[in-house]
């Protein structure tokens, strides 16, 4: 290169450098792998989670399923990055009894570290903000719905759940959890002995039953269906069998059931 050419040489812009970087064979193949893995995780999120999770009978359950899908999608680029880099390295693997030749000797890349840190922070922040918004939305809905909700007392007792319906319905007790459709319910939960955890699976809510300390959780069944009630906290010998069933019923069916239990309609 002549002196004149050197003098006239223009430094590439950051955009040109980035474009050149992306055209490198190692980089382009890694980016391709990254897109592939990201897509796989997005598909897992969209296809598998909604099939694994139970059919939601409440907004809480539906928002949990949606949250699992969205968090997996948020995480997908991270998975794409990690797995594409690992794939790139694996494809260049060295076999044999002697070490490979030395690789590139650079020991850091400040721009790379900064970019990664910023991207990781943004993705984390996205997850945090989304989670906080969901949590706040659920809390507001609870407060709103609790105003005209039916209060069901739940007592965890080794190894039985007992549900006590409101005095306005006769205050009867049942070991089956039946609920009317589109009527908010507040579960007022306590334990008669050790810790239990009240988990009506399809309603997507859960809270511990503690001795002498009442906990509450609010939900509103919005779809007809069966409910599996389980204990999610190891509570002793027959913990595995501390479960019962129930259903979300139409108001008419619920009222009929109440009467069969010795209660009366509110």
């Amino acid at each position: 290169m002549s002196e004149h050419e050197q003098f006239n040489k223009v430094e590439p812009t950051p955009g040109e450098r980035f474009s050149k970087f992306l055209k490198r064979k190692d980089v382009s193949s890694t980016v391709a792998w990254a897109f592939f893995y990201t897509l796989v995780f997005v598909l897992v999120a969209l296809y598998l989670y909604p099939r694994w999770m139970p059919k939601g009978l409440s907004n809480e359950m539906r928002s949990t399923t949606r949250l699992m899908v969205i968090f997996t999608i948020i995480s997908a680029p991270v998975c794409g990055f990690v797995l594409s880099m690992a794939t790139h390295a694996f494809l260049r693997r060295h076999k044999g009894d002697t070490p490979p030749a030395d690789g590139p000797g650079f020991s850091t890349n400040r721009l790379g570290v900064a970019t990664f840190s910023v991207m990781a922070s943004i993705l984390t922040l996205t997850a945090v903000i989304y989670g906080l918004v969901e949590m706040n939305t659920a809390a507001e809905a609870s407060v709103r719905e609790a105003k005209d909700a039916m209060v069901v007392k739940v007592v965890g007792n080794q190894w039985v759940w007992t549900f006590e319906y409101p005095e306005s319905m006769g205050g009867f007790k049942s070991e089956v959890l039946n609920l009317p459709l589109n009527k908010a319910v507040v579960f007022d939960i306590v334990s008669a002995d050790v810790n239990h955890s009240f988990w009506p699976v399809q309603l997507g809510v859960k809270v511990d039953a503690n001795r002498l300390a009442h906990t509450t959780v609010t939900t509103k069944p919005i779809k007809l269906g069966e409910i599996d009630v389980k204990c999610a906290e190891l509570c002793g010998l027959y913990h595995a069998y501390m479960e019962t069933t129930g259903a979300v019923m139409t108001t008419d069916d619920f009222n009929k059931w109440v009467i069969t239990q010795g209660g009366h309609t509110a």
Partner: protein
Amino acid sequence: MTTLDHHTKSARPVPNPQKSLITKLNMGTGLIVGIIFAYVTYKLVRGSNPDWEPTQDINNHNQALIASMLMWSVGFLVGIGAFIGPWRWMIGKDLTAEEQLYLAGDGQGIKRYFKYCTDHKVVGIQYLWGVIAMLAVGGTLAMMIRTNLAMPGAKLVTPSIYNSLVGLHGITMIVAMIVVATGPFGNYIMPIMIGARDMAFPRLNALSWWVLFTAIPVLCSAWFLGGIPTGWTAYAPLSVQAGPGMNAFLCTIIIFAVSTAVAGANITATVVGMRTKGMTWNRVPIFVIGATISVALAVPAFPTFMLSMIQTAMDRTFQTGFFDANAGGSGWLYAHLFWIMGHPEVYVILLPGVAALMEIVPVFVRRPLFSYTSAVVGFAGIAGLSVLVWAHHMYMSGWMPMLNGPFMVTTEMISVPTGLIFLVILGTMWNGRPWMKLPMLGVFAFLWNMLIGGITGLYLSDVPADNYLHGSMYVTAHFHYTLMGAALTGAVAGLAYWYPKMTGRMLNERAGYISFWLIQIGFNVLFLGMFIVGAEGQPRRVADYAQEYGTANMVSTIGAYSIGLGFIILLWAVVHSWRHGKIAPMNPWGAKTLEWTVPYPVPLENFDELPVITSDPYGYGKAAH
């Protein structure tokens, strides 16, 4: 200390160490004295009432059991000679140079592994076999759990035995995993890595191992005392109401916490104070950084665990009511004390394994460690944040829902320093050519397992998602991905890497590869299946489950058997290669850290002359030459 000061002259006549009491004491005398202490204590506490029945006076029975278990530990230490040094020092007749040399195991062959030996390399091997034994027991219990869960309605064991299997498996594995890397490698390898002649406090080093050893029979006794029905979390008030086996759990943790505190303080002091000349902080091998941050984290964390166990023991023996709501106490108090230890403990387990992998990557890719600073910041960031996240285990407890948000934020922030750990490993691998030996395979396995463990941890840290997932099999799968898939994989890779230095032999490669694939494939089959049933709604720690979860549970059990077979092969490889493996060259991997500059067997004081460090230990790569 073990390091013999050749210039020290004793003013007194030098006793022949062969006639000293030190030479008469060993594990056998420890067992005898320990059993005598335990028996006498039990009798003394129980009293002399001939009509006494343990089932009629439960408080007194618990008092007698707890006192005798703790005194067993003290008696064993007396019997093995742990207190001879301090005793002689107190009466003004400190150990002579010859006696110190004897304590260091000089010239005693295999016998030194059964004595109170202060040589860090002996302690490292003792830890290694102790960990292997605990993993074998814990793994066998896991196989029994999975066998029982293979089909719905299986009645292989009773619910009582099942709950005990879960509790014993949990606590055995937690104890084993806490010391799985820092025990063997932190003791054997780390002092050599930093160019030290021994640990800062060699007698304390031996003490940490033998105290831990005394916890093992105590834990095993739980099985014969009715088991541990509470899982390893031992939540009150279930733990207060539990049978006498619970006393064994409490005493195990109390003893273990002493061991951990001693080991943590010793390792930290060694790294801070005994690095060789020129080994500035930015030249310290990354394994040393990770292990030190891990044990330093354990030092403040474990006392709260110990405190919660002491309070539970008091509730069980004196009805103090710390955790009994009927007496004005609170189960939430226990949960706080437990998880203030419990979540940092996850990282106490994880960091040394990850650090071992970081040590491995540059060697097998022949590249400098990428962004050493990021690695240190990542470790420090994880450790720092880990003490601020404990209550995410209590979102569903009903305690202070308004604080769920802040704990969610701190928990999710951990993914940023964790990301740096990934970046360092991936950056080191970038455009290198990984040498696909067994240690390097562990790095690839780690990347996948930790990725899954990390992402599922993100869901669980989120309050609305945890609302559904908490207490389900999903949680079990998640923490196995981090603790087993990442930390244990790192420790096994570390064993494959440092095995030549610790044994003088190469680990059987073919058996190593077979075991690796059996374990990793089995692991993913097992726990991916567990994710599915957890998402579907199967609670954890259940002896039985609904028909709908049957297929995934059967698949998980098949995966478990694959893991079991893999570990049996790995164990065979470790044992067989120890005696019959190919003789290892001094530096089979061409690594640049100090442990590879010393021959096997490593001399008593490691170095003829202490090395002087002039550069970092990762000077690989073309530009570095």
